[in-house]
């Protein structure tokens, strides 16, 4: 099994490169043959990635969340997987290159620097923690995809306003669809982050009896959760739509990233495992 883990670790970036290349080629050229085959390539890539993550979990006897580069691989997978589900649900296939690029970057970094270690702190072997981390990462993937669609929306918006009718105009779906994609991703992301928070709250007292609710990680996550929560409710109430909703989603993403950077690097928190 170890051999297949090493092999897949090398193979996965190549598959993501292939998937990214096919999606990019299709974005620029829009060939019908490629249009159908790209989804198959992404599916195979995600299947291999699943096999890789499960193999790691079995071989090393812990969820693949014990170091930054395992986390990166899960981020790569969850972004790719979330996009794949979104593509299946909406059948909008023109934007994959922009999303898969993120999976590709994370997986390349992960494959280069990943450590193959059996010895990890006991706390990281906890299954609830595994569920918490994976749902949180899928949630953050959701809001990342939402932000990407937000950026694409703004690109098309600016192009339309400036009478530029180039590649962006030709290949991207229309503004309403981009807005919907951004919104659906954010809703899925929000639900998963909520799920991660709930698991965290359940698991936290048993794992860290001395934790504080004013911990920067908890405060940061709560702010992000609140921003998205308010945004989603406003959208449902009909107060937030179009360009404003998109800018709000991009703002939420910036806050989320800022919160992650601060809590993982600058602030002192119980939530620091690596």
């Amino acid at each position, binding site marked *: 099994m170890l051999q297949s883990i090493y092999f897949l670790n090398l193979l996965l970036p190549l598959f993501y490169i292939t998937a990214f290349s096919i999606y990019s080629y299709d974005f620029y050229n829009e060939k019908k043959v490629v249009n159908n085959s790209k989804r198959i390539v992404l599916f195979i890539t995600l299947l291999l990635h699943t096999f890789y993550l499960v193999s790691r979990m079995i071989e090393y006897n812990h969820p693949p969340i014990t170091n930054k580069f395992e986390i990166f691989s899960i981020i790569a997978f969850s972004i790719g997987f979330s996009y794949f589900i979104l593509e299946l649900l909406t059948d909008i296939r023109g934007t994959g290159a922009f999303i898969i690029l993120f999976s590709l970057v994370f997986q390349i970094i992960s494959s280069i620097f990943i450590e193959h270690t059996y010895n990890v702190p006991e706390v990281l072997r906890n299954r609830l923690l595994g569920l918490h981390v994976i749902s949180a990462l899928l949630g953050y993937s959701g809001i990342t995809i939402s932000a990407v669609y937000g950026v694409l929306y703004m690109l098309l918006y600016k192009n*339309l*306003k400036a*009478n530029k*009718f180039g590649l962006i*105009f030709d290949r991207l779906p*229309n*503004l*309403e669809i981009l807005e919907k994609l951004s919104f659906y991703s954010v809703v899925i992301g929000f639900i998963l982050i909520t799920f991660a928070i709930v698991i965290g709250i359940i698991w936290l007292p048993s794992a860290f009896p001395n934790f504080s609710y004013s911990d920067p990680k908890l405060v940061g996550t709560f702010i992000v959760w609140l921003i998205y929560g308010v945004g989603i409710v406003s959208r449902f109430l009909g107060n937030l739509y179009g*360009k*404003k909703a998109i800018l709000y989603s991009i703002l939420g993403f910036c806050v989320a990233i800022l919160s992650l950077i601060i809590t993982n690097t600058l602030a002192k928190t119980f939530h620091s495992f690596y």
Partner: protein
Amino acid sequence: MNLVGISINHKTSPLSLRETVHLNRDEIVEFIPRLKDGLFSEGVIISTCNRTEIFGFPSVLSIDPSIITEKLQEFKPGIILKPDHYSRYFSCGAVKHLFSVASGIDSLIIGDSQILGQVKEAFEISEDLNFAGSVLRRIFDTTIRVGKRSIKETSIGEGAVTVSYAAVQVVEKIFANLEKKSALVIGAGETGELAAIHLRDKGVGKIAISNRTVERAEKLAEKVNGGIVSFNSLAEQIHNFDIIISATSSENLIISFDTVKSALKKRRGTPVVMMDIAVPRDIDPDVKKIDNVFYHDMDSLKIIVDQNLQKRKDQIPSVEKIILEEMVGFFGWYNTLDVVPTIKTMRAFFEEIRHDELEKIKHKVSEEDYIKIEDMTRRMIGRLLHNPTVKLREFAETGANINDVSTNTMILKELFNLDHTPVNGNESIKENKKEDPLEEE
């Protein structure tokens, strides 16, 4: 191949002439018998607002295409067709031209999608009037295939190439579900009408027309199943519409910046598309500075049209490749047509030998044995000739490589001396008898 024809089109003649030459369906039906009368044994007439094409196989060995124009001038007195007004086509050139016409690369607007249907209809008229034989049918089957392949395999027909359609294309880049959108067309002239029809065809949920002359607005509204908005109350009404297309002949602006700004407030920022396809403009161009207002005028829409036309032009080499492939396929088939007579001659030749040999033994064996021998030889000849017959037919039917077909046919003819074989094959049999060393022994 002796297919000949003439083409009077936008490249060779002015619009006024093309209009007078144009033949409607009834005229084509009336004109075909005149062509049949001593000129063509089979043929076709394609006539649209931009071209009239008359093609056919001459009844006599060859004809001068100017005779076709003479017939046309007789049929439509008053037309003066000079040699410059039409192109002449022969044989391969004629087939290639028909393929080009059907593919849309010869059209005034490159990639015109209507021409394929018009070509199909033209051939159906010829068939109905018994003016189409097997070769012409094959030409048109291939012509239609060229047209379909061009649409399917290239993007020759993609993208808006008229300003009103470009406006709709922009609308589709902003809104997803047009059924839930409402549109207002200001101006019921030709451009406004075209835009309203495009919107209706795209399934816009609610269409309203506004025009200074209410009667014209009502007429167009009826055509597109739309409503009417009073021209004088435009400012109070425009916030109700997601798409506004203005195409009036007004000398002054009819929608101001402030009107749009206050409409957007009433719409609570919901996006609105404003297409100003009037010259001079109807909508204040400054409205494009307002958030969620997508304003486009003739100049910006012209950019789309020009880009799409260029993209279509870029597809011409791909379409020409399809034409070339189909030309090779068609002429491959055409050149194999003489295979069928060769098969017939070969079978007749073998049958003759069989009869000849049976004749020799007829009186030497009993009647019962004769029947058995006759049956056996028939089966034997059948089995011997089965494979060569099937193979040659395959070549003929599939339009296979012409060199293979020619070589095989030639070898067959040479081996059995079929070229010198009379219909009953006796002469050849006699010759073979003489030359057959086994027979001499």
